[in-house]
């Protein structure tokens, strides 16, 4: 029973030390965010990404039915690559 009492005291100390440390550590992190990171955010704001007028015109073309030659080339290229790969696999299996 005495050893259990001793263990309870140890567990209590551990609980107290643990909770105090967890709170202290995460509170320090709050201070870090509120000071260092907040200042960095003001000094180095995210660059505003320019609106992409080019891509939007391309999209419009695609919607209206015209497919750009670059896209056609890319699709046909990947199809022929796939066929080529597939046929070599087939041959190697045989």
């Amino acid at each position: 029973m005495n050893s259990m009492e001793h263990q309870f005291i140890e567990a209590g100390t551990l609980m107290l030390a643990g909770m105090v440390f967890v709170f202290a550590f995460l509170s320090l992190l709050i201070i870090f965010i509120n000071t260092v990171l907040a200042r960095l955010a003001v000094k180095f704001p995210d660059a505003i990404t320019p609106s992409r007028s080019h891509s939007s015109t391309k999209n419009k073309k695609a919607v209206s039915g015209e497919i750009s030659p670059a896209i056609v080339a890319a699709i046909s290229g990947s199809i022929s690559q796939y066929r080529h790969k597939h046929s070599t696999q087939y041959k190697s299996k045989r």
Partner: protein
Amino acid sequence: MDSLTKLWLSTGLANFELGQVIMMLVGCGLLYLAIARNFEPLLLLPMGFGAILTNIPVAGFSEVGGLLHYIYYAGIDTGIFPLIIFMGVGAMTDFGALIANPKTLLLGASAQFGIFATLFGAIALNGIPGIEFSLKDASAIAIIGGADGPTAIFLASKLAPELLGAIAVAAYSYMALVPIIQPPIMKALTTEDERKIEMAQLRPVTKVEKIIFPLGVLLMTIFFLPSATPLVGMFCLGNLMRESGVVDRLSSTSQNELINITTIFLGLGVGSKLSAEAFLNVQTLGILGLGAVAFSIGTASGVLMAKLMNKFSKEKVNPLIGAAGVSAVPMAARVANKVGLEANPHNFLLMHAMGPNVAGVLGSAVAAGILLALVG
């Protein structure tokens, strides 16, 4: 005739022991939970299968020379697998919500009370005949309250490897049961009006903040708690890979292929610890019970802390997000969102709950570091 006898003796049927059969059924139970109930299937499926494999008589999966033996000692005994998974979790984590509302770190901190309060419970169970938990065992069991699988496995492999199987099963089972365990506690501790509280929109967080944050966390851990640096360090590495934006391939690998491969081996390795002699005892029942207590206390502490913050803070905090302080990312945050929507269909708490949710991951890693430093 001799050959026939020899053949018979080499069959599984001749060598089965009752304990092995029961543990295979436990393995099947885990498979059922994973496949039919969708309970943490990524880990429970390989774990359940590992439990079946390790209990096959004669095959010797978990003896020297057996596959599971090497998987366990290479990846779990050394702590490598949980740490690699932690790196992947870091690569998947967005600290934006936490940086935008840093006071939610206090919710993540208070939810760790579940861990430390369970230490008492584990020691109290020593009064029951057949149960004898040392302080190391109690610490390893208590970390279940952190609701963080890799952290629980990492700490258990360091402090109480013989209890690893039961601790991992309890941790992952309760993480899957978060949507069942948490809502009644959340509702019991809050009023309808409190659950309806709408929170202010979070400020946008810059890229520089997100890059410096993991470095700052690592620096603080190096200064104040080096014993937690294996966990926090790997977590921060994964997060920096994600936020830096210059190593998308590495970030993608660590949050997809690498974490998936490691999860298979982690599950099998933990399953190899589900042997009859290690699992079929009163201690396992104690661990399963304590796990539920740890989760419940953690949830309650988070909610109560949020209520306390409401008394002192100008900006209102919905107490439901406090429950997300018990890691279990992103399940606990989803539960907070769901319970909030039940009270107020226009109140989306998910982003607000992600703050305490990821704070809980950091909090449980810090708690694990403290337990390692003081007990290990």
